[in-house]
């Protein structure tokens, strides 16, 4: 390992006032784009591209990677305070973040998200530094068979996300998978459920689906209840100061095992091209539920339910740099846009980068880690004031969030038809929320659907049904079996406990 080169790159970043200034500008912008529902890191990069045009390639790349790497740190704010995920991967934070706010623990939840994001981002970067020379052949060895089974492995986590009713969870997951087939069939070009609508040819927009299933139902419920998001009664707003935030940060270190595990899982998933960050946060949330001794607390305000997706959200950015930079295969959709921006700046991703551009690679990894640390500091200073937002009357909040929700849906694809889809999914999502249908499996089904279908067809074409007997497939099948076995074992323990 070229330790001299690695630390020279660190000096290049922190020793340059210009690079540090860019980092200081990029971090709040990244957090802002994460915090405003529907904007997200992708739009942030697109909007930033004109500003970095003509910049020194390394400086421009540092600006973009720093901005992109902290999007989910900001995205935790609306997820926790309003139940409105800033971006798709932040949806998992809503599941326990919002109940914590309702219990009057907004500060703690924000602190946990902040600490987890920072630690996750740094671990993700360190992970990449450590495995970069070793894991290159592993990523290359991942074929369609492994992709298919990895996606199925993700879907088995639906069971862990299903709350009390497994059948409802499975149904909602399958509903997501079904809606993922709304598109032009990639095999035959046949229009599936598109009703001759052009905006459906590329499939249902994930941002619209997530906003419809999560944001609109929260606002409808808030308006119907007529109260503020946090049902805090007589508790004073000032109790949500640094104390709560510090407690949340402390929770991250109290659950150090979970923090490290989910950071590593997130970084690993980030490395696998196409699986994306949305899957990382949900898989890590599922892992937190599965590995907990008290899984029944999840969904009603368990701090581990905030820590797990937040660590994964930031750590996967480190992991997804590997395929993006070395194979030119983006690890996520955000990385796909970043890839285009790198090319525009004159950084040509590909195997040649390993031979001639490692100084750039090390600098980007350091920038990613420093941005995460800076985001923690900036966020920590402002965190108590974010908590006050919980006390904003619901009636004042609702029209703004509805406007931003419609805006986010429109901006994601610039198609007004998405507004129709958003409203329909919003109404359905409200009744799902009202009658205890778990909504997270819908999102994971929708995200993994195309991966399942594409990988399955490719694997069948290459190896036929024997693709299941490949070494990587057997490993993934073992993981699926172990996951199902662990769930059944937990159910048995639970029923024995209730009988006793």
């Amino acid at each position, binding site marked *: 390992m070229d330790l001299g080169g690695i630390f020279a790159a660190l000096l290049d970043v922190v020793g340059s006032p210009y690079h540090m200034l860019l980092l200081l500008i990029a971090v709040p912008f990244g957090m802002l784009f994460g915090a405003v529902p529907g904007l997200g890191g992708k739009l942030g990069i697109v909007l930033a591209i004109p500003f970095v045009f003509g910049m020194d390639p390394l400086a421009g790349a540092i600006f973009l990677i720093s901005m992109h790497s902290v999007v989910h740190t900001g995205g935790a704010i609306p997820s926790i305070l309003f139940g409105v995920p800033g971006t798709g991967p932040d949806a998992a934070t809503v599941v326990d973040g919002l109940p914590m706010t309702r219990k009057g623990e907004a500060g703690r939840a924000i602190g946990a998200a902040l600490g987890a994001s920072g630690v996750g981002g740094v671990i993700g970067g360190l992970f990449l530094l450590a495995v970069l020379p070793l894991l290159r052949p592993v990523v290359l060895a991942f074929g369609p068979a492994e992709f298919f089974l990895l996606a199925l492995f993700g879907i088995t986590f639906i069971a862990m996300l299903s709350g009390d009713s497994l*059948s409802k969870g499975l*149904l909602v997951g399958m509903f997501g998978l079904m809606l993922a087939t709304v598109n032009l069939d990639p095999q035959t070009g046949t229009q599936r459920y598109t009703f001759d609508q052009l905006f459906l040819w590329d499939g249902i927009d994930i941002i619209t689906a997530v906003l419809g299933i999560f944001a609109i139902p929260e*606002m409808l419920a808030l308006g*119907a209840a007529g109260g503020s998001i946090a049902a805090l009664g007589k508790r004073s707003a000032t109790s949500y100061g640094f104390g709560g935030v510090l407690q949340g940060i402390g929770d991250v270190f109290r659950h150090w095992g979970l923090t490290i595990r989910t950071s590593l899982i997130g970084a690993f998933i980030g490395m696998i091209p196409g699986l994306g960050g949305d899957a990382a946060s949900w898989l890590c949330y599922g892992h937190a539920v599965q590995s907990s001794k008290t899984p029944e607390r999840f969904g009603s305000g368990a701090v581990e339910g905030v820590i797990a997706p937040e660590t994964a959200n930031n750590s996967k950015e480190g992991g997804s740099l590997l395929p993006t930079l070395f194979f030119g295969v983006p690890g996520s959709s955000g990385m796909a846009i970043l890839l285009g921006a790198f090319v525009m700046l004159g950084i040509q991703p590909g195997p040649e980068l390993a031979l001639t551009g490692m100084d750039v690679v090390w600098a980007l990894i350091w920038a990613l880690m420093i941005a995460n640390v800076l985001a923690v500091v900036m966020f920590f200073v402002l965190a108590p004031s974010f908590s006050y937002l919980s006390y904003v009357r619901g009636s*004042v909040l609702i029209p703004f969030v509805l*406007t931003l929700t419609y805006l986010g849906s429109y901006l994601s694809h610039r198609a007004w038809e998405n507004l129709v889809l958003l409203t329909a999914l919003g109404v359905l999502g409200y009744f*799902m929320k009202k009658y205890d249908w778990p909504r997270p499996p819908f999102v994971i089904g929708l995200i993994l659907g195309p991966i399942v279908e594409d990988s399955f067809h490719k694997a069948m074409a290459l190896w036929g049904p024997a693709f299941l007997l490949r070494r990587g497939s057997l490993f993934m099948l073992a993981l699926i079996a172990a996951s199902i076995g662990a769930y059944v074992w937990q159910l048995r323990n639970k029923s024995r406990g209730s009988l006793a």
Partner: protein
Amino acid sequence: MTPRTFLNGRLLTAVVMLAIFVAMSIMALGFPAKARLMPLLFGIPGSVLALARVIVELRASEHMSDVEKKGNERAQQGEQQMFVWLILFFIGILLFGFIYAAPVLVFAFLCVGKKELLVTGLISAICTWVMLYGLFEIAFAIPLFQGLIVEWLLA
């Protein structure tokens, strides 16, 4: 026992899910073999599971009290009002676009729907307009949806 006895939101949600799965599975039969593989792979078990869910909800509804079925009247009223506002936001933005409709809707929601102070409504409406027009249209140079009627008038 009348059909009304069974009618409740839980059952209707399950029925809607069943209808979606069945309809999508039937439609999938018209696709070529490769294209229908995945929709049927998820659609058929989904339909069976949804049918089972409908039966479970149907049985559960027999044991529900009238209050459980009808729900809290006040909550229902609030729910209906919110659905009306959601539709108004949807139609308003769809027809008149973000720049014109959103500030008016924010003002109307606050002052008419929630009886907030006129000043609160006005400030909120202005903030919305500044965000949409100032930040997105001017600062970010992102043209926002103008609405079907405005687009038609401009055309």
